[in-house]
């Protein structure tokens, strides 16, 4: 019961945060809220997770949750990596403009 309450508070917090962020990133907020709702559902009705796992051919409900969790984390990591690359490209363009604007001629031809 203590774990269920703790997990519920955590998932509830995530859902609230996603709702606050929804005007800025509606798609991400929707997915986060959907997963938080599914998490809450399975925290309180774990036997339903086991039934779903059996349907998917995974075995135990906890295994299904674990696999989905790993896949979601990897997707989040990939998304972050790609966003970081995009930001690095923008910083590179900025640094390049600075370098070209401040180019210095050879010392002899001052």
């Amino acid at each position, binding site marked *: 019961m203590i774990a269920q309450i703790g997990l519920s508070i955590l998932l509830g917090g995530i859902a609230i945060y996603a709702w606050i962020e929804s005007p800025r990133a509606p798609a991400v907020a929707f997915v986060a809220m959907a997963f938080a709702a599914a998490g809450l559902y399975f925290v309180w009705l774990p036997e339903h997770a086991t039934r779903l796992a059996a349907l998917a051919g995974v075995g135990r409900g906890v295994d299904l949750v674990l696999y989905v969790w790993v896949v979601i984390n990897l997707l989040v990591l990939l998304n972050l990596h*790609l966003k970081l690359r995009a930001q690095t490209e923008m910083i590179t363009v900025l640094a390049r403009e600075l370098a070209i604007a401040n180019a210095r001629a050879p010392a002899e031809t001052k």
Partner: protein
Amino acid sequence: MALDQNGPVWIVIAAYNEAATVATVVADIVGRGFQVAVVDDGSNDGTGADARAAGAHVLRHPFNLGQGAALQTGIQFALGKGAQSIVTFDADGQHSADDIEALLAALRTGSADFALGSRFLGATVAMPTTRRLLLKAALAFTRLTTGLRVTDTHNGLRAMTRRGASRIALRQNRMAHASELLHQIARSGLGYVEVPVTIAYTRYSLAKGQGLGDSARVLVDLSAQRLHR
């Protein structure tokens, strides 16, 4: 200023902490009458000051971005200065300035917009076996992914016409830029030719060169770029 048949030639050198060699490299090229642009990629050892004292125009990245980013900066600068031909050249002393003229001569024939230096058509001095194997693996990968029948890849000594340089927009900041450049050449549909060059390996240049770990990183960078856009 050295002029090709169409106008000025600029030599672009990307340099990161190359104070040990950059002045000698720049002085040798400037002595041949070429304009040199050194892109100091956030060095903290006086590379920029040494290059400038040796006669180069110096552009400084505020922090280290990588060789690909530095080359693109240099190419963009040279184009802005009216370069009609651009040669990329390493700062670590591996390349021979004698080869610049051969690269430019290949462009002058008018049949190609890119003249790519090839150490395997030319010569290597003191090349370790592990480096040879690594380059052969990279070559197989490049041939497979670009369709270009080149004999060398990741060779920083190359020349391009203004038209060719205008078609290059490197987005790979680090070592994957060499493969990216070949991809862009293949996509441009412009002609290329390989020119025999000599690469002289020294303990210094080998210490600064790429290893197996860098090759893995190149593969990751190239894959990530395909997902990105």
